[in-house]
């Protein structure tokens, strides 16, 4: 990995667009996908985009009130009209957009996200233990569904840590 791919910069607090919420970030998980973006394994889609797609934070209502804790995950939006969306496979939508790739993510004090794509989260758990659930947890769950583990079956997981040699 090239050294220091990230730069700490000051930017104005983003403004939530129609259908979006403004989120004040408490914690954000660091995922291998962030590393793929930093290393160029995944081509950048938008210059100078803040990475991070496991963001736990609090919704800031217009006027400044607290709108509760939410999670902002990788899937940011889909078209809702294509064949894949109609079949319940919005993850395969050709127009799908992603947090920290197509829009600024959670390596920031604030971010905006479509309200329909954020998840309510418990108030009583530490933000840093909730953050990894938003990608490692959710995508791991989908992977578990996809691998058709039979009742009482034996599951193997390859790659529990990344080591460079």
């Amino acid at each position, binding site marked *: *990995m090239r*050294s*220091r*791919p990230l730069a700490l910069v000051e930017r104005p607090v983003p403004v939530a667009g129609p259908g979006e919420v403004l989120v*004040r*970030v*408490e*914690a*954000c998980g*660091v995922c*291998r*996908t962030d590393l*793929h973006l*930093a290393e160029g*394994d*995944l081509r950048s889609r938008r210059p100078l985009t803040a990475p*991070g797609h*496991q963001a736990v*934070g609090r919704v800031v209502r217009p006027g400044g009130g607290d709108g509760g804790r939410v*999670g902002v*995950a*990788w*899937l940011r939006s889909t078209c809702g009209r294509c064949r894949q969306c109609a079949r319940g496979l*919005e*993850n395969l939508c050709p127009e*799908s957009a992603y947090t920290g790739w197509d829009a600024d993510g*959670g*390596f920031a*004090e604030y971010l905006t996200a479509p309200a329909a*794509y954020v*998840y309510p*989260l418990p108030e009583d*758990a530490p933000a*840093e233990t909730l*953050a*990894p*659930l938003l990608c490692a*947890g*959710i*995508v*791991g*769950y*989908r*992977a578990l569904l*996809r*691998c*058709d*583990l*039979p009742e009482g079956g*034996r*599951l*193997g*997981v*390859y*790659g*529990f*840590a*990344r*080591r*460079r040699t």
Partner: protein
Amino acid sequence: MVTRSPAARALALELGAASAGDRPPEPLDSAILFAPSGDLVPVALEALERGGTLAVAGIHLTDVPPLDYERHLFQERTLRSVTANTRADGRAYLALAAERPPVVKTVPYAFEEADRALADLATGQVSGAAVLRIG
């Protein structure tokens, strides 16, 4: 759990994995490949029980070497990819996690240390989930 890292093996066993090592001790019914290494695809397929399924869960994978039909796919072994998730997956998983909270081992970093967190992830220095504390 199949991993080369001694720290990852120890963590996997601590979190309840039945075994942790270079290869599974017996044929697997199912497997998930999180490592971004295509070289592991034939290895994981060969370690499946007849009728088993391998799901590749990463968004990026290096090239997969040629597969040998008889060794890697015959006997109805299945190779699948996993692409992100649906919101239904997210809601279902988070409901399960609220009901039975998973044990999460985190490695916290200050917001200003995001670069270091990425570097540590790249070199396998993170034993658990790296998390930036921001606000």
